């Protein structure tokens, strides 16, 4: 829809093709086109009237003056167009939703905003998207280009800009560009138009807040991240009292949850006291906890706790720069509450050993991320040994969470480090997230950020090894080619080493892919278990299924499918036969069926 002088002729030819295009779509998979239909219909409506008001809003105003010249210009004859037939391998783009926030009532004093389904609206939208696509890496240029859009006096340009930016930011499954770009672009626009844009942005924020009850969870996540980062650039100034309605609602419902998550993110970009200062006293219940460490062996009342004396011993040892071996020997004497007698080696799963070691070490390293990372690195050997079994891994995560439950950011970075240093694996993290210890925090944003980050690390790991394998294979192919060119027999031996490497890499790839599949299966299985539990309980109690918790959980499941759809597509048969079978509760099965429909 990006119209320039030379393309007007092409455009009118295209419009004449459209009825044929529409007919063929109707025959095939109609639902795929549902979202694009408004655009097509708008174009067709005007094309049939043989007028193109859209070109008046094109980037070059010369259109109108040069109309007579255009009619005599080179005419293009487009060949007939037949859409290719559908095949099993056909890949379709994801359906696109037309995003509309504003209409002409939102700016009653300014120029009239073109209607939501008018072709002018689509043209402006398309042009603004183009500007962002061309200039997003240079935000000053991008902002300047956006605010100098031609014909800006005839349209409420700031509203269009804000709508287009949010349309991209909230696009599912992912925005066209990195999320943070939209935040800094909006900041730049506020600097360029300080007298007008911030007000429109405030209005947009208010509107989005009002619609939180029905907003998709992934979009809410992005809204939280955008708003908190935006506020941090403007001294956290906001009229929080306007949102006092959230204070009387169920704390698990979308609005109070949103405010709580925003304040938590704001704190991460500043500090705890700042947050207490920026909100009215009535909002204190929604303020985040002070991110301090909780050490269970710290005060006098902990004398009676099992392992207390060992904890004190460890603390002394850590402070005197003990080695891994010295720590092992201290831990050797810790009794195992799970067994009557220890193994000879004393290193089977012993939750108490893990408890005293992890609590004490993390407490001593609590000062900063760097201190904690150094601690993990220095005592890596002890961690690996204690967390050798699956239960060990789970318990390390549990204890770490107990120590740092007030500091979700620290939890996230520690989980990341533990995965990267192979103290725990991805499946352990997934199981830990669905464990009963985390049930109270299950709907909090940090939990899902950890899970998605874990999945991404797994995916990156598989890609990396696949790439290494490809490179090794290419190297071998090049070697063969050179040999056949040179007729050199001596390189047979060189081949052998490379072939061995390829075989090892092949095994590595298969192992990684298997771990990746297992991770997704664990996640889906745990979702099914936790949702089924809720559905059964509601049926027994006779209460409504649709609690805020349920809505959140179902949308988190949808989010997994959507965010990682390319990988999950490989497992469709397994998922259908093993997990999402016909016996499953229809509420849960529906999510899987919707996902299948998207891929259809």
């Amino acid at each position: 829809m990006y119209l320039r002088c030379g393309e007007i002729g092409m455009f009118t030819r295209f419009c004449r093709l459209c009825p044929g295009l529409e007919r063929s779509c109707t025959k095939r998979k109609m639902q795929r086109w549902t979202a694009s239909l408004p655009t097509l219909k708008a174009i067709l409506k005007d094309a049939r009237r043989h007028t193109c008001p859209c070109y008046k809003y094109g980037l070059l105003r010369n259109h109108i003056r040069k109309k007579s010249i255009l009619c005599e210009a080179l005419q293009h004859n487009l060949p007939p167009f037949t859409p290719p037939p559908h095949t099993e391998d056909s890949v379709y783009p994801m359906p696109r939703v037309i995003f509309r926030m504003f209409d002409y009532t939102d700016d009653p004093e300014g120029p009239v905003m073109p209607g939501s389904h008018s072709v002018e609206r689509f043209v402006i939208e398309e042009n603004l998207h183009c500007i962002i696509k061309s200039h997003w890496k240079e935000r000053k240029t991008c902002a300047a280009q956006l605010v100098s859009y031609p014909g800006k006096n005839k349209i409420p340009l700031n509203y269009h800009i804000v709508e287009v930016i949010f349309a991209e930011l909230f696009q599912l499954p992912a925005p066209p560009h990195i999320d943070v770009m939209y935040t800094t672009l909006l900041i730049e626009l506020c600097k360029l138009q300080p007298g007008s844009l911030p007000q429109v942005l405030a209005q947009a924020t208010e509107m989005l807040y009002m619609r939180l009850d029905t907003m998709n969870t992934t979009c809410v996540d992005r809204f939280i991240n955008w708003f908190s980062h935006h506020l941090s650039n403007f001294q956290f100034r906001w009229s929080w009292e306007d949102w006092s309605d959230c204070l009387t609602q169920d704390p698990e419902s979308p609005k109070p949850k949103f405010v709580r998550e925003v304040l938590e993110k704001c704190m991460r970009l500043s500090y705890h006291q700042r947050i207490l200062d920026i909100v009215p006293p009535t909002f204190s219940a929604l303020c985040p906890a002070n991110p301090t460490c909780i050490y269970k062996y710290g005060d006098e009342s902990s004398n009676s706790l099992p392992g207390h004396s060992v904890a004190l011993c460890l603390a002394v040892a850590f402070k005197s720069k003990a080695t891994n071996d010295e720590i092992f020997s201290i831990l050797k004497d810790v009794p195992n509450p799970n067994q009557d007698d220890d193994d000879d080696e004393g290193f089977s799963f012993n939750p108490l050993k893990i408890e005293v070691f992890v609590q004490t070490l993390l407490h001593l390293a609590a000062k900063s991320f760097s201190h904690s990372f150094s601690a993990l690195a220095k005592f890596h050997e002890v961690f690996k040994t204690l967390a050798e079994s699956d239960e060990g891994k789970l318990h390390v995560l549990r204890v770490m969470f107990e120590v740092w439950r007030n500091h979700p950011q620290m939890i996230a970075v520690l989980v990341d480090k533990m995965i990267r240093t192979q103290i725990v694996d991805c499946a352990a993290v997934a199981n830990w997230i669905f464990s009963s210890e985390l049930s109270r925090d299950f709907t909090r944003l940090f939990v899902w950020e950890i899970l998605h980050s874990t999945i991404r690390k797994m995916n990156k790991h598989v890609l990396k090894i696949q790439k290494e394998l490809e490179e090794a294979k290419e190297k071998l192919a090049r070697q063969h080619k050179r040999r056949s060119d040179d007729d050199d027999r001596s390189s047979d031996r060189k081949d052998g080493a490379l072939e061995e490497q390829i075989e090892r890499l092949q095994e590595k790839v298969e192992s990684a892919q298997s771990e990746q599949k297992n991770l997704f299966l664990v996640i889906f299985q745990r979702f099914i278990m936790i949702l089924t539990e809720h559905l059964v309980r509601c049926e027994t109690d006779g209460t409504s299924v649709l609690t805020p918790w349920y809505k959140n959980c179902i949308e988190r499941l949808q989010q997994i499918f959507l965010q990682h759809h390319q990988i999950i597509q490989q497992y469709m048969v397994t998922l259908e036969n093993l997990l999402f079978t016909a016996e499953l509760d229809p509420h849960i099965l529906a999510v899987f069926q919707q996902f299948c429909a998207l891929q259809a």
Partner: protein
Amino acid sequence: MDRKQQPSRYPLGTVSNDLRILRGDSSLELSQYRDQHFDVDDDEQEKSLEESSTLYVGNLSFHTTEEQIHELFSRCGDIKHVFMGVDKIKKKACSFCFVEYYDRLDAENAMWCLNGTSLDDHIIHTDWDLGFREGRQYGRCRPGGQASNVFREDSDVGRGGSGKQAQAHDKRGVQ
């Protein structure tokens, strides 16, 4: 993204230089800064900088923590390490740091999106860096901090008030 030509090869004003400017991505261009403490020539430095995934971040408040930096820069990708700048003598925070990403692309996102935005009420400045080596975390000015802080004219409470030079001047003025 096109690989940029070495700036030293084409003198300013020639056609090749003008074309380079048109093709280049100015947000990612190397600044004039070259590390004088490293025994590596300019061309080598530029090559390393064009492959680096470490950023120098300047004009931080003295109070800005590793956690705040981690939160902000995580929005561009997974961070490998944050090295906080330190006053060589006082061993305290020194208003700069290094952020190392696992992937170069994430560092590029940070250059595109975060350079010139605010952290802790300070407009931060990001630049490509050769990569952290022991010793680079120390400010290199004689008082122990950063030259940019000593010669600062404005008053910045978050960076200790007036620049040291300005403070010295004031004292002389009072006397």
